[in-house]
């Protein structure tokens, strides 16, 4: 009997237990009965201070060092009503591309002399450009007076780096940029491959003055070992700088690697036979052994901001900030030159004074590009991602802004509004603001908004952010805050 009772009891218990209602059933009944202990507010009246700051140094050879070189280079220039004149010159070493010798005869002796035909610059744009492509652009080629070398301890070459070079160009040319068309290699016609020597139509091919090419051919014909030995070649030709003309209206990107940039020397021999020799631009790399040479290339950014409406040339030191109040309530972002917008939200901690405590459900920084400062053809909104860094009084980039899981956050462009010009950027600051509410912040702490560390030396995008306190388009922090009563 006792056993029976035990069994009965346990089974009754088991039966009832298995019938219990699911704890997480959703139901709405009773929702009017229960008081809430919190209120949720959307607050967007925080003071948001902004300023423009400038990086001292922007790596243009690769990031974080020469072992991760950029595989494209920026070249050209444009005039911008807001940012002034911006130009990029391209410095590079030039490879010998293998021994350049006379053509072999029937006895396999290299003694058939060459006749110079032409010297051609070949480069492939990579479709990215900034500025006006409808105007004619010029380019000039100058020999460097010194070898390019990487000083000890330096990670790479910076945008302000220059190397002495000949005033007189050894070549120059004019062209129209067709960034898309010129970016394509045309290696075949139908099924038929075009021999390399016949290719004349793809890329940007610019014939330059003969003198330099003629000199090389003369050296080949006289069996000068400058054209056999890479070390002697490097001594003979330290490298070159490609300079845009002062009237250029577009900055664009050349591919490095394959298809790459080169100087090609066409020649004839034995009457009418044709040949060519390439002097390629090799992507930056350090010297790997005694018998090799290092190769370097980088862009030098020059910006003349003296005549800009907001006199942006005032910023010199990285630790300075040019407050938006002094620049018509604007903040500036520019790749290459290294402008970042610095944003401070000094009073956000006041949220802690509401209620007993509270928490941020969502906090978004919203900003608008200045109306009229961009268009759809020439000065477009940035195509590169806009990164955000946590910064301090000295404008150091302390850390990338991340969400709670540690993934980096960037500004998102929202353009779903009816009015075309009312697209805005938003940055999710939920985690950042919750962090400030918990840990506090220094008065000078803030955020740097601009292009990423990794790419700022390789982007020409720019943007102007509006921050007029009286405008609907000012920078705003929209925070959905739960107040615990």
């Amino acid at each position, binding site marked *: *009997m*006792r056993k029976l*009772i035990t069994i009965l*009891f346990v089974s*009754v*218990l088991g039966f*009832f*237990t298995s*019938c*219990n*209602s699911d*704890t*997480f*059933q*959703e*139901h*709405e*009944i*009773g*929702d*009017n*009965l*229960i008081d*809430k*202990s*919190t*209120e*949720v*507010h*959307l*607050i*967007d009246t925080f003071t948001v201070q902004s300023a423009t700051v400038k990086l001292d140094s922007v790596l243009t050879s690769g990031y974080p060092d020469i072992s991760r070189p950029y595989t494209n280079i920026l070249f050209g220039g444009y005039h911008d009503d807001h940012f002034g004149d911006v130009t990029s010159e391209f410095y590079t070493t030039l490879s010998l591309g293998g021994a350049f010798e006379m053509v072999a005869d029937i006895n396999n002796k290299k003694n058939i002399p060459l006749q110079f035909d032409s010297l051609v610059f070949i480069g492939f744009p990579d479709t990215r450009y900034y500025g006006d492509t409808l105007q004619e652009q010029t380019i000039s080629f100058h020999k460097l007076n010194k070898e390019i070398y990487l000083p000890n301890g330096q990670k790479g070459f910076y945008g302000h780096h220059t190397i002495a070079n000949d005033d007189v160009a050894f070549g120059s040319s004019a062209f129209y940029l067709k960034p898309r068309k010129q970016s394509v290699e045309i290696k075949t016609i139908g099924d038929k491959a075009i021999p390399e020597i016949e290719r004349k139509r793809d890329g940007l091919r610019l014939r330059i003055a003969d003198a330099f090419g003629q000199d090389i051919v003369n050296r080949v014909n006289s069996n000068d070992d400058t054209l056999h030995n890479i070390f002697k070649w490097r001594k003979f030709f330290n490298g070159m700088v490609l300079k845009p003309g002062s009237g250029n209206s577009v900055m664009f990107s050349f591919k490095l690697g394959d298809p790459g940039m080169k100087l090609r020397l066409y020649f004839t021999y034995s009457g009418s036979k044709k040949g060519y020799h390439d002097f390629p631009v090799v992507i930056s790399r350090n010297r790997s052994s005694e018998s090799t040479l290092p190769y370097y290339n980088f862009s030098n950014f020059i910006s003349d901001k003296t005549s800009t409406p907001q006199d942006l040339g005032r910023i010199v030191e990285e630790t300075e900030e040019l407050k938006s109040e002094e620049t018509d309530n604007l903040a500036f972002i520019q790749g290459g030159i290294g402008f970042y917008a610095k944003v401070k939200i000094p009073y956000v901690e006041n949220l802690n004074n509401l209620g*007993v*405590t*509270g*928490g*941020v*459900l*969502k906090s978004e920084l919203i900003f608008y590009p200045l109306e009229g400062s961009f268009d759809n053809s020439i000065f477009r909104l940035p195509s590169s991602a806009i990164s955000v860094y946590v910064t301090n009084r000295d404008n150091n980039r302390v850390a990338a802004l991340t*969400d*709670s899981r540690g993934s980096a956050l960037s500004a998102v462009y929202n353009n779903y509004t009816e009015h075309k010009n009312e697209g805005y950027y938003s940055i999710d600051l*939920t*985690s950042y603001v*919750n*962090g400030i*509410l*918990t840990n506090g912040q220094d008065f000078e702490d803030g955020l740097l908004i601009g292009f990423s560390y990794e790419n700022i030396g390789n982007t020409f995008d720019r943007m102007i952010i509006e921050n007029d306190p009286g405008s609907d388009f000012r920078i705003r922090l929209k925070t*959905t805050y*739960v107040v*615990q009563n």
Partner: protein
Amino acid sequence: MWNVRMNINFFNSTGKITALFVLGLLLITSNVFSQNNTSSPYSYFGLGERMQNINGNSAAMGGVSYGYKRGDVLNLSNPASLSSIDSLKFHFNIGTTFKFSKLNQGDKSDHFNDFNLSRIAFGFKVSPRYGTALSISPYSSLGYEINKRDEILGDSRSVIRSLLGSGGLNQFVWSNGVQLSKDLSLGVNGIYLFGNNTRSEDVVIEGGASTVYRGKTELISKGLYFNLALQYERTFGDYKINFGGMYQPNIGVDAKRITSVSVSNSAAIKFEDEDRGTFDVPESFGAGFGLNKGKHFWFGGDYTHEKWKGTRIFDEVTDLVNRDKFSLGMEYNANDGYARKFLKKMTYRMGGFYDTGYIKVGGNNIDSYGLSLGLGIPMAQQKGMLNIALEFGSTGTLSNNMVREDFTRITIDFNLFETWFVKRKYQ
């Protein structure tokens, strides 16, 4: 000391009972089965939904207990009755409650099933005039989960607010009954009130936002209180009348309250506060009577008043209201001791109650009423009694857009006896 010799069974029983007691403690106090003892949104208020702390006999009679006295029943609502439990037996009582409820509001309704172990108790006679018992049972329970859409002030979007209540308070009771004279018995319950009432409020922006705001309050009770009781019995020929009374002073029960706020996207807890203080169990009194006619018929009624109004939880005056409860019930024991038919061996019970409740929501008292039916089924060899009670009732009202809870509550309760104290005439 006692002029008896213990049966060898004692040792077996003690082990078994201890095991059951520990099991019961686990079931009642922990979330072993992740169960809620209630699903009522009204459990949000006060200390939660008050659990009825009565045995299967009383549950079948509308809760009547003050004037109830039987030698084979541990009536802990009136500990004075313990003075007359059967002296040769060790009493063991375990009860389970299963509540089917339907919540109604407007034209919406929802069903819930809640199971809980409603009590474990054992007791015995220490001396001819003194009986004692130990028990554990739930005192109050929280079990609501409500999701509501709510506005964001200054925004067109909404938030979803989830209000969640869980846990409850339990009581560990040491009951004592002493017979002072032939007519009068006094009793006292010493009660350790323990447990954890947890309420949380989660807020999230509607539509896939990942950040969850959570405010949470835990009331952790660890305190003592007591109540006093008496029974006074007179016999008039075939009739026996028994008056019962109960008094409980307002006592602040020691407790700890932990309030915390966290936001899911930052690891740190934003706010945490731990308070020590007390919450009140109310001054209460109850009175009842029980009338026996012969061996078979019993009829009784109870009235209880609990002064919740003005009680405090951590120095904050609650907005609870005074509670009145009225019960009436009767019992017919068909067994004349010689019955052979099963139906003839059983005890039949019925009753009803009306309870004003201790909460007031939106100007409405959340009251309850119910009718009950029950059976007492004796086990073979006088090993005990299986009591089944069925209650049909309703809490709250549909008017003013309130919630009405219609429920059926089944209580199954085993009264088991072990013969402990036997004086054998022949060894």
